[in-house]
């Protein structure tokens, strides 16, 4: 059944009266500044709103309701305790510009979070202000740029990015004024080092890498890559999207990376919230420390204080109006305290165990693993090239068929260099039973491919809507509701 738009529910004059202050006579505002038409907002009761948004929530798959093996997104359980403790009234009511003397509670949490993130990444210092992974990337590449310019090195115009990288990497490099040079991947999934050697030179500002890579495998020659890049005076940027795979096992700082962003909404289990808010905290080694975005938290004489650009003259500056997504940082802080040092290592171990088990079991029931000779990290890629060629059943068809079987689909068509791929990341919080059920569902779909492929083209059948016409959405753009009387006038 279709859920009406909230605008279609109301009646003129109806309202949620408990939320209404008394009507006021306005004092002293010039008439020409006042709006003359009512905005298109619903006129409904409080119960109308509660029912409508509760019903809409039922139309979502989520971690709390479904296995959600979306590769590269680390959809692990978001502990409820993290949410409740980050939403204590003392934290919610604190104004961002409240004086430091009445802010020691949050500042101590942020300071400790900076320290703990430094430990698990092998970096020297952290700034927590970037509000998402992509903003962390912007901060990181801006710091690389600031570093070169500060040394009087104006010739570096290029950033290197593997062809398997997240789209945000090249987009960020462009925003920072760099030309992007793509690097090819070898058939075994590692970066093509010979190609790298050809491309690097005095123009190289740096390289952006994810390790384990977006293909779900560990870049074994990372030390050689670091040597080559540092050898020409470039810097290494670590995209922390896949940090979950190596937590407590190896440190990006030891691999040779100079700067890193950490997706707290992945590795440190803050909620994805239907697409944000995230957090892309950035860490650096000593080379880049002077350029960290402000503000961050300092500590002396048992007192925590903000460090801002008045002290850090070389900082790349401010990225948000205040200090980033503070509520997200508190959730990550609670999560890390719940896990502790040993819990960190367990995350990597069981995320990797689950991925390798799932890869093995899917291979046994007949799926083609994109890099079969390699160990899976916390995720892996399968390719449905054969099914697409023989039966015209694509990765998209598989994704939709999984929805009908009660599973959110893995990431489809990424990384782009593997044709008809599914990138599968189970995370450490899923049980063996759940993984076995997923394998059974995948095997069953594979059988349907053989006997009734046309049926998969129609999937999904059981979701609140059937397959959506995306071409129509783009051709007949309808991005906001217009009441009929407006449309006809």
């Amino acid at each position, binding site marked *: 059944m279709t859920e009406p*738009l909230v*605008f279609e529910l109301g009646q003129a004059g109806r309202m949620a009266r408990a939320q209404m202050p008394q*009507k*006021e006579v*306005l004092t002293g505002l010039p008439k020409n500044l006042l*709006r003359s038409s009512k905005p*298109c907002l619903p*006129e409904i009761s*409080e119960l109308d*709103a509660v029912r*409508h948004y509760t019903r809409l929530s039922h*139309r979502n*798959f*989520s971690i709390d309701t479904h296995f959600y093996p*979306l590769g590269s997104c680390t959809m692990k359980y978001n502990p409820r305790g993290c949410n409740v403790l980050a*939403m204590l009234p003392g934290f919610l*009511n604190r104004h961002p*510009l*409240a*004086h430091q003397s009445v*802010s020691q509670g*949050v500042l101590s949490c942020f300071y400790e979070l900076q320290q*703990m993130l430094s430990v698990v990444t092998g970096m020297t210092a952290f700034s927590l202000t970037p509000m998402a992974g*992509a*903003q962390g990337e912007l901060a990181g590449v801006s710091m690389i740029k600031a570093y070169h310019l500060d040394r009087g090195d104006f010739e570096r115009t290029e950033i290197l990015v593997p062809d398997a990288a997240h*789209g945000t990497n*090249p*987009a960020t490099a462009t*925003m920072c004024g760099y030309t992007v040079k793509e690097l090819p991947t070898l058939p075994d999934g590692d970066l093509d080092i010979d190609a790298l050697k050809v491309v690097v030179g005095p123009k190289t500002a740096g390289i952006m890498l994810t390790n384990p890579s977006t293909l779900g495998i560990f870049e*074994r020659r990372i030390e050689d890559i670091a040597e080559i890049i540092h050898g020409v005076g470039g810097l290494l940027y670590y995209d922390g999207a896949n940090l979950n795979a190596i*937590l*407590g*096992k*190896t440190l990006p700082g*030891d691999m040779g990376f100079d700067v890193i962003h950490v997706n707290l909404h992945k590795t440190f289990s803050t909620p994805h*919230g*239907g*697409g944000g*808010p995230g957090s892309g905290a950035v860490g650096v080694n000593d080379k880049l420390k002077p350029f960290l975005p402000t503000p961050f938290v300092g500590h002396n004489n048992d007192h925590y204080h903000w460090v801002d650009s008045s002290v850090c003259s070389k900082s*790349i500056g401010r*990225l948000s109006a205040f200090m980033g997504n503070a*509520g997200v940082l508190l959730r990550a802080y609670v999560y890390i305290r719940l*896990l502790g*040092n040993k819990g960190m290592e367990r*995350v990597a171990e*069981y995320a*990797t*165990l689950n991925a*390798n088990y799932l890869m093995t079991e899917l291979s046994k029931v007949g799926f083609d693993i994109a890099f079969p000779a390699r*160990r899976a990290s916390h995720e892996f890629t399968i390719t449905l090239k054969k099914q697409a060629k023989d039966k015209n059943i694509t990765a998209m068809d598989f*994704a939709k068929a999984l*929805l009908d079987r009660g599973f*959110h689909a893995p990431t489809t068509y990424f990384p782009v260099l593997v044709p008809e791929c599914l990138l599968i990341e189970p995370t*450490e919080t899923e049980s063996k039973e759940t993984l076995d059920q997923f394998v059974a569902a995948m095997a069953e779909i594979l059988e349907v491919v053989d006997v009734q492929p046309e049926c998969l083209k129609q999937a999904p059948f059981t979701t609140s*809507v*059937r397959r*959506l016409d995306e071409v129509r959405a783009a051709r007949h753009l*309808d*991005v906001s*509701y217009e009441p009929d009387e407006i449309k006809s006038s």
Partner: protein
Amino acid sequence: MPFIPHTKTDTESMLRAIGVDELEQLFDEIPSSLRCSDVNGVPSALTEHEVGRLMRERAAMDGFNLSFLGAGAYEHHIPAAVWELTTRGEFYSSYTPYQAEASQGTLQVIYEYQTMMASLTGLEVSNASLYDGASALAEAILMAVRVNKTSKSRRILIPKSLHPHYIEVVRTITSSQAIDLVELPYDRSSGRTDFNVLQRYNNEDITAIVIPQPNFFGVLEDVDALADWAYEHGALGVAVVNPLALGLLTPPGHWGQEGVPIACGEGQPLGAPLSSGGPYFGFLTCRKSLIRQLPGRLVGRTLDADGKPGFTLTLQAREQHIRRSRATSNICTNQGLMVTAATIFMALLGPEGLRRVAALCHNRTVSLVEAATLIEGVEQVFSASCFHEAVLKLPVSAEFVLDFMRDKGVLGGVPLESWFPDFDNSILVCATETKTLDDIAAYVALLRDAIEAAGARS
């Protein structure tokens, strides 16, 4: 292992299936030279009860003062239903709605949000949100540069009466894009953007002008005149607005003769708690003709295979995951959860509620300013009308007064001197609908005590 469900038997049988003897073997592709021994710099694990006590102690240290702070983050009543619904697991723990059929809840919420924001700003199209108000302005400026093809200068007029942090953020984010940011002074008596100075740019190539409403000082700008100037001189008007104020004030799409084509701002007043500055959300709306230059996620309504209406992300060819280095922005996520809260907030308040809250905010600040300026030596710095905050000049050290008031549990305002050196002893003070007339009376009495104490001290 607080959240790992594996029993010993599970682990053993899974290792056997994979064909390895122990967990460590799963990491055999990491060169041994890179293996770390431990991360013991992180403290040992706590139970939820233990960490609960710790966090309650820390939260109790902050956040229980009577606050008259504004300056870009505003205390408002948030209906209980807003976060009760928003933190439902189905919203809280879902991802970006790539699989549209499994994400209709989030997608419909965003479509409703887009409708509300477009209408509130008097424009046709809203994206699915950006990170916060300051970064939304940076994106709006970059968008204006892409849109205004007749202008070659990439020169942006940005008023000094804008939040100083916004100007800093715009500089950080646009620093590599050859954007020429020119700061426009404000009139020292009215607090508005100085129109006389603006006239100097009459014959210059200006790509866009940023128009705040209200501005950082709470002052209401002559937006009609500024929008008309922009239109007449081929510059794009980029509005930075408080969305809650738009329950009451003329929306940017209707400013002047033609309106301005782009509006952005901080969404926090619409249901986001103060929470130390985030998560909030930035909004960005525009005329439909500019939609292909709009950064960020966008939801469209379409039909499913049965011809029923449904929602999906659309125009994704603008975005980084498709266009990579040629995308309109590197932005990936929006602030989905905050948008969910804002949508429910606006649905509960409706047009009348939003108007009433905005009007009450305004009246409370007027009451506060009237009472405070009865104290000898306290003056309102600017003469133009304000929305819900105002600049007060004190006869004594602002730092002393604010410290004095804070010791009594009142956060008395934001000192302006560090941002605006010529505003010595001046504070920006805000009273929203959450402050009663008794709160205001208490504030003014305490302010009087503080000023007297400062006088006695000197």
